[in-house]
Structures are given as structure tokens and as C-alpha cells.
């Protein structure tokens, strides 16, 4: 196994916020927050000036506003971020084809094949960082390690830091060699490991585990008893520095979804159903846009008490129409008690099949009677309708046509990914 670390993690610094500053220089030096500004919005990205006040990504916007009342809130421009992301990936692709994009602003690279041509990893990382700065006028941090996990932790260590004293520039590039890897890894809090969320962290803390080193010192059996087989074995291995996950170029999307936080909690079941059908429509459009179809439909509901409920159903065949996804989603929604009110609702499709194949089936007139979803001729005619709707929307705009569930006093409301993705503004 390679002694030289060849995995790079490239992570743009405060990406969305930095793009906003780039496009509007008057924002430079100001606390800028990109995200939903409304009562239920969350922070998607913020400048280091905002971070100095304690603002962090994924924080509720309300809290961010309390911490930093003078912050400038911006709704975000997904298209612009995607455009710059495309330029970033062009630079990455010049180094190696082994690029695994994670979102718009992060990527893993395996440069094992580029060493002979381009020099040692640290040099490649520095050149990469320089090119990003020269061509995009943006900064990024690069971590180098033997595994994706180490590289990711290393890039975090390379980031600029903020404190009350002000902004402290980061190292930009941090390489963790195989000899210092365990020492580096074990010093981190367990929360730094992938797959350790608040619940898992709490269980580990109860075992007296605070750092990754503590976890590595525990026998696997003990961890498995506490966390279950899959998670226990996986985390123990990660804590010992074993992360076999390779860099996979162009990893296909695993799921396509749409979710919304409501400005007021919803309790009316028919209203909830209307929203689910509307979201199913939007998921279906995205699926077809990606020439995909899906076998699994998931409905996610966050209640007023912040408890999260998800229900999934996997079909025997792949579907891609709003009607078919909506039927499954509505049935799943029916299995969830809305309690005192629904705060967030989401519909997603997974088990994606590439190539847009949608196996049609005969109308045997028994589809529903058998308790399974079957593509009836009814559904096939809906597929025709759907194709026509897509064509009309392409030509006349998204709000030109929609199902009755999308209509309100203001006309046709078609949800799209870019509409308030971080909560209502």
C-alpha cells in the first residue's frame, strides 16, 4: 500500500459567501450570510467576518441574526455558484481524471497517477491552490492524506481560523503523512469521524469516549455492543485510520429530493397531501431531467417538536412521473401522525436507475387490487401528459402549466430547487 499520501481534499473557503463578495466588492470585509432570512431559514454559507461573531453554516438564521444583527443576508444564487463550480472542476480535471465531486464546493482527488508527471503531492496541492486563486479569485484549502477521511480532516486543519482577535490565515495546504496519521487522527474529537452525529456521539460519550483515540483504544466488540454491528465495525475501523472508500469519479447521484420548511406549521392533512403531491411533481421533473427513474420513494416529516419521521417504500419497478411518485408519497404521508403540526416536509426518490428506463407494464386491471403499484395504461397516459408538460414548461416557463395541487390565488406555484432552498426568505 502506498506510503505516500495521494488523496487530496479540496474545499472552497466560505464558498457561496465568497462568490457574493467576489461579484459585489462593496461586500468585502462585511459579515455576509447566504441563506434563508425568514423565521425558519438556515445559514448556507457565511464570510469569515460573520464567523467571527459565532455564525456557522447550518445554523438557524434567527440565531445568526441574534449573534450578528448587522449581517447582510443574501438569498443565494445557485446558478452562479454552479457556474463557478464548473470552472473549479475544470481546474481539478486538468490534474487528474480521478475527481470525486462532493457538492459544488468540495472534491476528492486521487493523484497517484499524476505524481510522476506533476511532482510530489504537496507541490501539486500548492499549484492547485494558486491556480484557483489566479483564475477564480477565490481561496480554498487542500488536505492531503492516505484516505479520504484523513484528507478531509487535513483540509479542515488548513482552513483560516477566526477568533475574537480577528482572522488568522490558514495554512492553505496540510499534508498528513502515514507516519503521523494516527497521532493526527486520534487527537480529533469523535464527532470528526464520518457517521458520528449527535446521537452516536452521545452514546460514545457515555462510554467515556471523547476523542478518536479513545475510540480506537476500545475493543471492537464493545463498540459494536453500543452502536450495533454495521456502525460499530465501521467506526472502529475509521478510528484506526482504516478508510477503504476509494475516490470514485462522477459518482452518480444516489437520490433526488425536494424539501421545504414552512413558515407556519401545517396540521391540515389535505393541505399536507397537496404539498406532498406538489413536491412529488418537482422530484419527478428533476428525475426526468437527469434521465433517471427511481424505485424508492421517501417522505420526510419534521414535526413541531422537531422530531424527524421518515417513511420509505420500494417498488418492484422504477417510476418517474409525478403521479406515480405522488401516489406512493401520499400513502406514506398517511402513515405519519402530524401531531401538533408539520414544520418541514420532504419527498425524495432513490434507488435511481440510469438511462431513464421506465419499464412499462400491461393494464391488467388488477394493479391496485393486488396491493402493488403497477404502471397502468392510466399511468402511461399520465407519462404522455408529463412529457407534454415538460415540453410546455421548457418553452413557456415553469409557471405556465401545472397540476391543480400547484394552483393557489397567485397562479401556478411550481417548486424548484433554487426557490428558497434554505427555507423561506
Amino acid at each position: 500500500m502506498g506510503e505516500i499520501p495521494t488523496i487530496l481534499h479540496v474545499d472552497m473557503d466560505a464558498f457561496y459567501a465568497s462568490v457574493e463578495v467576489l461579484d459585489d466588492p462593496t461586500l468585502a470585509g462585511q459579515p455576509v450570510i447566504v441563506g434563508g432570512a425568514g423565521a425558519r431559514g438556515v445559514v448556507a454559507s457565511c464570510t469569515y467576518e460573520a464567523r467571527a461573531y459565532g455564525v456557522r453554516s447550518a445554523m438557524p438564521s434567527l440565531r445568526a441574526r441574534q449573534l450578528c444583527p448587522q449581517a447582510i443576508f443574501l438569498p443565494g444564487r445557485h446558478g452562479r455558484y454552479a457556474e463557478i463550480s464548473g470552472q473549479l472542476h475544470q481546474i481539478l480535471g486538468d490534474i487528474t481524471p480521478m475527481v470525486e465531486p462532493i457538492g459544488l464546493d468540495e472534491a476528492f482527488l486521487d493523484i497517484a497517477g499524476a505524481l510522476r508527471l506533476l511532482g510530489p503531492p504537496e507541490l501539486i496541492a500548492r499549484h492547485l491552490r494558486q491556480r484557483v486563486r489566479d483564475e477564480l479569485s477565490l481561496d480554498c484549502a487542500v488536505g492531503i492524506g492516505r484516505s479520504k477521511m484523513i484528507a478531509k480532516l487535513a483540509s479542515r486543519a488548513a482552513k483560516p481560523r477566526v477568533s475574537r482577535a480577528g482572522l488568522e490565515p490558514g495554512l492553505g495546504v496540510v499534508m498528513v503523512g502515514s507516519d503521523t496519521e494516527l497521532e493526527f487522527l486520534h487527537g480529533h474529537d469523535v464527532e470528526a469521524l464520518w457517521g458520528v452525529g449527535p446521537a452516536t456521539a452521545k452514546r460514545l460519550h457515555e462510554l467515556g469516549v471523547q476523542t478518536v483515540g479513545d475510540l480506537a483504544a476500545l475493543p471492537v466488540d464493545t463498540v459494536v455492543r453500543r452502536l450495533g454491528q454495521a456502525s460499530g465495525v465501521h467506526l472502529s475501523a475509521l478510528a484506526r485510520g482504516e478508510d477503504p472508500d476509494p475516490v470514485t469519479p462522477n459518482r452518480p447521484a444516489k437520490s433526488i429530493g425536494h424539501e421545504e420548511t414552512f413558515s407556519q406549521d401545517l396540521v391540515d392533512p389535505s393541505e399536507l397531501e397537496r404539498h406532498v403531491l406538489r413536491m412529488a411533481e418537482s422530484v419527478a421533473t428533476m428525475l426526468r431531467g437527469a434521465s433517471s427513474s427511481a424505485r424508492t420513494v421517501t417522505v420526510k416529516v419534521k414535526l413541531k417538536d422537531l422530531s424527524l419521521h421518515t417513511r420509505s417504500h420500494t417498488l418492484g419497478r422504477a417510476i418517474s412521473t409525478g403521479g406515480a411518485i405522488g401516489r406512493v408519497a401520499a400513502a406514506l404521508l398517511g402513515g405519519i401522525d402530524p401531531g401538533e403540526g408539520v414544520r418541514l416536509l420532504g419527498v425524495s426518490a432513490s434507488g435511481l436507475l440510469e438511462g431513464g428506463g421506465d419499464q412499462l407494464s400491461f393494464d391488467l386491471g388488477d394493479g391496485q387490487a393486488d396491493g402493488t403499484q403497477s404502471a397502468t395504461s392510466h399511468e402511461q397516459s399520465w407519462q404522455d401528459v408529463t412529457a407534454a408538460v415538460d415540453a410546455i414548461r421548457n418553452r413557456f416557463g415553469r409557471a405556465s402549466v401545472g397540476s391543480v395541487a400547484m394552483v393557489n390565488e397567485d397562479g401556478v406555484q411550481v417548486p424548484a430547487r433554487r426557490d428558497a432552498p434554505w427555507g423561506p426568505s
Partner: protein
Amino acid sequence: MKFRSERDALVEMLATAGRAVGSRTTSSPVLSGLLLSCVGNTLSVTGTDLDLTIVVTEEVIGIDDGSCVVPARLSTDIVRRLEPGAVTFSTSDDNITISAARSNFKLRTYPVVEFPTVGRTNEPTTQLPEMLLAEAVRQVVRAASHDDARPLLTGVLLSRVDGSIRMVATDSYRMAMRDLPGTDVISGEGDLLVPARALAELQRLPSGTISDKAETSRVGVAASSNEITFWQGNVQISTRLLEGRYPDYNQLIPDHYPNRLHLGKETFLAALRRVQLLVRDNTTPVRLSMRQGGVDLTVVSQEVGDASESVDGDFTGEDLVIAFNPSYLIDGVEAVQGDEVIVETADGSRAATVRGFEDDQFRYLLMPVRVS
């Protein structure tokens, strides 16, 4: 009970009857056993899961009449591993001793009285030509569903059409239909819905031994309102019939197709199997671009790569592109008898038909995969 026979003959009997023994754990342990009955020089071995029952009868050297229930898998495995040659089964109290050469196994048995009395129909009422039935089963069973959530579709419909038998199966994505002209109608209650599993077992049996010539062998059939029994050679297969109204398949059959593609069967099959190599998740479709002079096949698998092939043939109609699940299409082409295959289509989203050239007895309807 005591008898003696050849190892290989016994293995065959035990394994065949054992195929009816369910692998799932049943409430009644005796169902994991095989009933052995020896009368004179005739041994019969019975296995059942209450739905499907298989009885194999063979000549042995009988010593004492009697019966017992032996654990199916274990006794089959033991006999299979013995030295070749004579094997003796003999009961004493609740045990059976299996011995051969220098091997001795003493196994506990199940009480005979607990073994269910199923599948004991006496006499066939109809005889069907074995070759014809075997061919029809081969052509049709493949289209039956394996999805227990749609129980009716796991069956093969045996109905009477114009005085002969028609077999139909569909899993809702494809439908196979075969007429058996010249066959006597099975006396009984009209249409019969036979679990495909029973017919698949019938298909696996060695050719009958009623006559030395396979072409003239016949399979005996008898049906009641809830059961059907087949006799093929020394094996009797009984199965409970499925209950319910089978979907009206006639309305699925288009009366006219505008497009018709005529190909050599083996060339087409070989090409399909080659491009199918790129299919990873069994959901990647194969695209057929039909045009004058033949068809182009393409498989595009994002993860793996892509493949294309051209097959020469006669095409009449409008050029069109239609995609299918490759395994379903291969299933249909394989089922066709003869050297030539006809693929009839309407458009990319309606059922196509695969059938043999000048063959009106078999047709295979297949729904396409919609691709963008």
C-alpha cells in the same frame, strides 16, 4: 419396512420428491420429511409442502412392507455420499437404518400418521403428448411472475379455446401464450390456474418412460376444482390450484401491427446476449433501432460503457426506436420455435409481439422500456 436398491436410483427418487419439500421452516416438522412406502417390490417416495406434492414410484427389492417418514435433506445427502452399489433401508421402532458397504446410518424418523394425505388422485382423465406439453411449458412458464404480492400472476392459466388447451402466463411486463391444438380439454371446472412452480418442476423431470420413444410419450392429467395432477413417467406431481379471476389477457393483444421485423433467431439471440454483457443492474434497456434492412442494438451503461450491434433482416413499416429489458426480450426470442423470429411493433410505448415465422400457436407480448 425393509428394501434394497441401487444408490443412484435412490438418490434420483429422494431428490425428485425432495423438491416439493419447502425450504422455509414450517409449523409442522413432519413436512421436512419424505414419506417412504414399500409394498411388495414397489417403493414410493412422497414429498410435499401442502401446496405442491411430488410422488416418485420405482421398483426395488422389497423385503418387508411398511412405511416411514425420513428427514428429506439429510437422507438424500447421506445416500448421495455412499459408495456406489446396493443400499438397504430398514426400520426399527422410530428409527431407520441406511446401510451400504461398510457405512451405517441410523436416523430418527417422524410419525407416519402425522404425514398429510395430499396429492392422492387416482387416475389420469386426459393424456397429453409429452413433447408438446414440455415445449409449451418451456415457452410459457418464463413469463409468470415470481412476486408473491401478485399471487394470481405466479400461475399459468390453462383454458379451453376452440376445443383445445391454451396456456397463458404474464408478470404484467410480458405475456406468453401458447395454443396446444389437437389436445383434449382437461375435464374439470373450466379454466385452471396452475402455480408456475409446479409446471417448472414438471419441466425438470426426466422424459417419461411410459413409452421408449419420447415423441410418443404421454403425460397423464387429472384436475378437480382445487387440484391438478400430472403423471410423467414414474413421477406424479400434484398442486393446489390458485384461486381468483385471472386478468382478461385477450384485451392486451393488439389486432394489428404497422411494423414488422423478420430476423434469423440465432443471430439475433447471439447479438442480444453480447450487448447484454454491459447490463449491470438488469434494468439497463437495450435499444432497438429498426430500419430498412435490419435492426441496430445499443446498450448504454453509464458505469461500464456502451455496446452496439447490427443484425440484418427484413423490416417493413416506419423506422422506429424501441427499448426493452434485455432479459425479457431474450426470454421471448428463446421461446420461439424454429429458425426465424418476427418482432411486431406499434410504437415505443406500446406492447410488441415476438413470435415465430408462420407460427400461430405461440406469441410473446412484451412491454417496452420508456427511454427519453
